[in-house]
């Protein structure tokens, strides 16, 4: 069981089939789900699954948080997408990784995020801070 940070291979193919629309407003709904260290997530992940997801309750809802996306843009030859930081408030959560997926497209996987170790909140906030939206740092980039 392991979680790695990766752009899902199925997502690359689905981009070419126009299955994902990151425009805001008007695009698809993207969500982020948290997983325990028992999960296996990586480039081969194809869709959201509740297996080994953080349990419902204590500030976490199965399926995860809905992300607010920033419409795709380009800089030089790189296209990128950004999301607003997301918070699970007043939560008690232990998570080892996350999956961003498209809730409007059969829950198709987009990227998997490895936290590197268990991260925990206890009656507190659990926040994922996305990187600066530019061609070298943005969370999802296509060069």
């Amino acid at each position, binding site marked *: 069981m392991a979680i790695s*940070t990766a752009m899902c291979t199925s997502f690359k193919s689905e981009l070419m089939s126009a299955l994902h629309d990151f425009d805001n407003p008007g695009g698809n709904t993207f969500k982020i789900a948290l997983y325990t260290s028992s999960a296996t997530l990586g480039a081969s992940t194809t869709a959201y699954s509740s297996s080994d997801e953080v349990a419902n309750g204590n500030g976490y809802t199965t399926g995860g948080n809905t992300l607010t996306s920033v419409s795709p843009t380009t800089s030089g030859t790189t296209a990128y997408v950004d999301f607003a930081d997301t918070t699970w408030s*007043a939560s008690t959560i232990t998570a080892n990784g996350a999956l961003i997926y498209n809730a409007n497209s059969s829950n198709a996987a987009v990227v998997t995020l490895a936290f590197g170790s268990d*991260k925990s909140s206890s009656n507190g906030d*659990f926040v994922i801070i996305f*990187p*600066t939206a530019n061609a070298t740092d943005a*969370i*999802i*980039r296509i*060069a």
Partner: protein
Amino acid sequence: MTNGFGSVGAFEIRTTQERGFTVEEIAEDLLNKLLFISSEAHPAIREQAIAFKDRIRPAIIHYMKQAVRSDRTTLAAQLGKQGHYDMAEIIRRL
């Protein structure tokens, strides 16, 4: 993380125990979002950007604290209206 033609950027996880984030912690995140200083920036531009960041930090913290206080006033008022005077007082004294 580079993965063929696509890349996934470096994100951060922040958590708290038995509290929320402080205004100062959130203000720092906001400043980092508002003002990104490239590692390749000219030293003079870098210094100017850092100086600007330091200049606006107190103003951001001041208004964020005001927002928190104002929200607590609303919460305390709502709790008081519902007869929860003890809870309203706890919120007021935070």
